[in-house]
């Protein structure tokens, strides 16, 4: 399979295992480019990328920006805080305005599930979902998969424990779909208030006890717990959460000795993860950031170049 038969990347759902392999292989190549002294290529020269971020995000937005620039695209960041969107203009009207500027790819992050899909129906360019509400964050799942594959050599048969606020996490949803598609074994570990309804039918094993959930795991993937959810609404307090669900050295012992520790960032040190673990030898959190740029380069190349080399699905 040497082409990518999709027009947009709206989610991991809808991708076949060979599509995922294709993107990960491409991303491996992109890692090499990023490690060279000369990091700029001409793959997307002349093409325009617009980053449309309705939710503030430093790391994802810079990662997309850097990925576009390394491929030679012209990148524009649309800052929504100062725009007419805040004045009541609808998402669709914003999209139509941007569409009239003839971008080749729109990268969108929005607080509502389905926003990227809605946008994709109204514009004539490729759309990449950089996170839509609690729905999906496909490039995060791809960069997580790339990080695991490079460290473990494979995804199939790997046991991954996703821990923390699964309920509100688009990262968790995309990862559950991707890891299952690639033959990994997925566990979720969280207090019952932070798990979505029907979780047991999402092809995962559900644990409420952290040490049990981490037992013999190859990968421990921590999720961020937002501050407004820590004090009584979903969990009673930070200290109680940290005691039962924070990743510390003691709990990590339950996982395999060479288990990877991952976090999509930004981290709450002392809430969901202890500093010594975040900075410890098992942590691959820094690599995740590096893989992020590579994966986003791969996705953009796949949508804007490779996609045109074969029949569309």
């Amino acid at each position, binding site marked *: 399979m040497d082409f990518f038969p999709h027009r947009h990347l709206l989610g991991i759902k809808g991708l076949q295992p060979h599509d995922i392999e294709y993107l990960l292989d491409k991303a491996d190549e992109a890692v090499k480019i990023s490690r060279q002294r000369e990091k700029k290529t001409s793959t997307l020269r002349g093409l325009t990328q617009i980053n449309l971020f309705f939710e503030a995000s430093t790391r994802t937005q810079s990662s997309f920006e850097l990925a576009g620039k390394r491929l030679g695209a012209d990148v524009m960041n649309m800052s929504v805080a100062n725009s007419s969107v805040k004045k009541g203009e609808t998402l669709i009207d914003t999209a139509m305005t941007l569409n009239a500027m003839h971008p080749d790819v729109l990268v969108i992050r929005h607080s509502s*599930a389905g926003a990227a899909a*809605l946008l994709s129906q109204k514009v004539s360019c490729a759309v990449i979902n950089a996170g839509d509400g609690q729905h999906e964050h496909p490039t995060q799942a791809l960069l997580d998969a790339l990080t695991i594959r490079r460290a473990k050599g494979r995804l199939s048969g790997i046991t991954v424990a996703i821990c923390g606020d699964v309920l509100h996490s688009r990262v968790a*949803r995309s990862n559950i779909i991707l890891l299952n598609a690639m033959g990994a074994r997925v566990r979720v570990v969280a207090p019952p208030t932070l798990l979505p309804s029907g979780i047991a*039918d999402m092809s995962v094993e559900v644990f409420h006890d952290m040490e049990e959930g981490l037992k013999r795991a190859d990968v421990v993937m921590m999720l961020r717990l937002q501050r407004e959810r820590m004090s009584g609404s979903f969990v009673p307090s930070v200290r109680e959460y940290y005691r039962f669900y924070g990743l510390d050295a003691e709990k990590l012992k339950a996982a395999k000795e060479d288990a990877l520790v991952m976090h999509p960032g930004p981290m709450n040190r002392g809430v969901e993860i202890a500093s010594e673990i975040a900075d410890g030898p098992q942590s691959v959190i820094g690599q995740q950031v590096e893989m992020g740029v590579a994966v986003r380069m791969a996705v953009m190349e796949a949508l804007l170049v490779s996609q045109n080399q074969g029949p569309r699905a």
Partner: protein
Amino acid sequence: MTVTVLINLRIVDPSQNMDETGAIVIEDGKIVAIGAAATVPAGAEIRDMGGLLAMPGLVDTRVFIGEPGGEHRETIKSASRAAAAGGITSIVTMPDTDPVIDDIALVEFVKKTARDKSAIHVYPAAALTKGLAGEEMTEFGLLKKAGAVALTQGKHAIPDSQVLRRAMTYAKHFGAVVALEPRDPYLGVNGVMNEGLFASWLGLSGSPREAEIIPLERDLRIAGLTGANYHAAKISVPESVEAIKLARKRGVKVTSGVSINHLTLNENDIGEYRTFFKLSPPLRTEDDRVAMVEALAAGDIDIVVSSHDPQDVDTKRVPFADAADGAVGLETLFAAALRLYHAERITLSRLVDALSTRPAAIYSLPAGSLKPGSNADIAFADLDMPWIATAEGLLSRSKNTPFENARFSGRIVETWVSGNPVYRLQG
């Protein structure tokens, strides 16, 4: 006096247990004779109806309109045209307008506008509490005298049980029906669709079925305590049906309704965030839908409503969670309901009962019957005519139909009010 005789009809009128081929004799806007035995008086104008179905004009008791305050979505006039196209000759309008219909002047406004602009009967329901805020009761006695046919909170809940108790106690004295949509204001407050696996995959907050069942059970207890006439206006899960059956056994005066959407659609229709399927209560599972159809057929649910709720692109062409609830439904109500008949889930007679005779009885409206002496409000339908609903084909000002491009068998061909045609299918 002109006498009109319509012959060659299949007449279904649950109010007189009639399902037979015959004629309808109309004089001075009233029905004077009906059925197989009806004879043609000398000098009458005769029209052969070619075997169409004739039924009492449909009565839709849950219709949201934009007038006053949201005329770009729907006016009383545009709603009445849409209703006529759907075979509906009487509608009960909801007070969720701007301003809220909570005062006699506003009830009179609706009635006057309807008299001037509407071809069908428009009966306003008034707000149970001022501004629908759920705090202070409105002037039930005066509102009723002004022409309000029921008291309701529209889309709004009454969180305070004490307020509800007093309102129901007071309403009982005036004999007014209290029609509420049970919805817990806290449980599943952020829910935008049915809670469950499907919502979880879509990343949407769910509203659990208990958010309907719990306030319904409270309402039923208060109805029992006060002796008021309570109507559960839109229920969506079989547990609600069970709660109502048990309350009836205890002697509570309760009736119930279900929207056509909950009888013909389920949560999977939402697909990839299709906002026209965002409703309140949310569309439930297929098992729930089937159970609601069974309960309707058995008479455990009394009536079907369109829950017509026009929304413009500004409230629907937005991400799912941000979109308004509601779907238009006046024009597709009967065609969609016929799906249940064609699937042999319900008899035609019971269907017409639930769409006309029963709602007229619950709201004490002069409708729902073709007995001699009644107004000649009649809907004529071809039970098998195939057609495809399109947004452009809708007469409603808003096009938010969940039945866009749906294939239907059966269609309203003509609608009469007081012996005069108010709608005729073109072509």
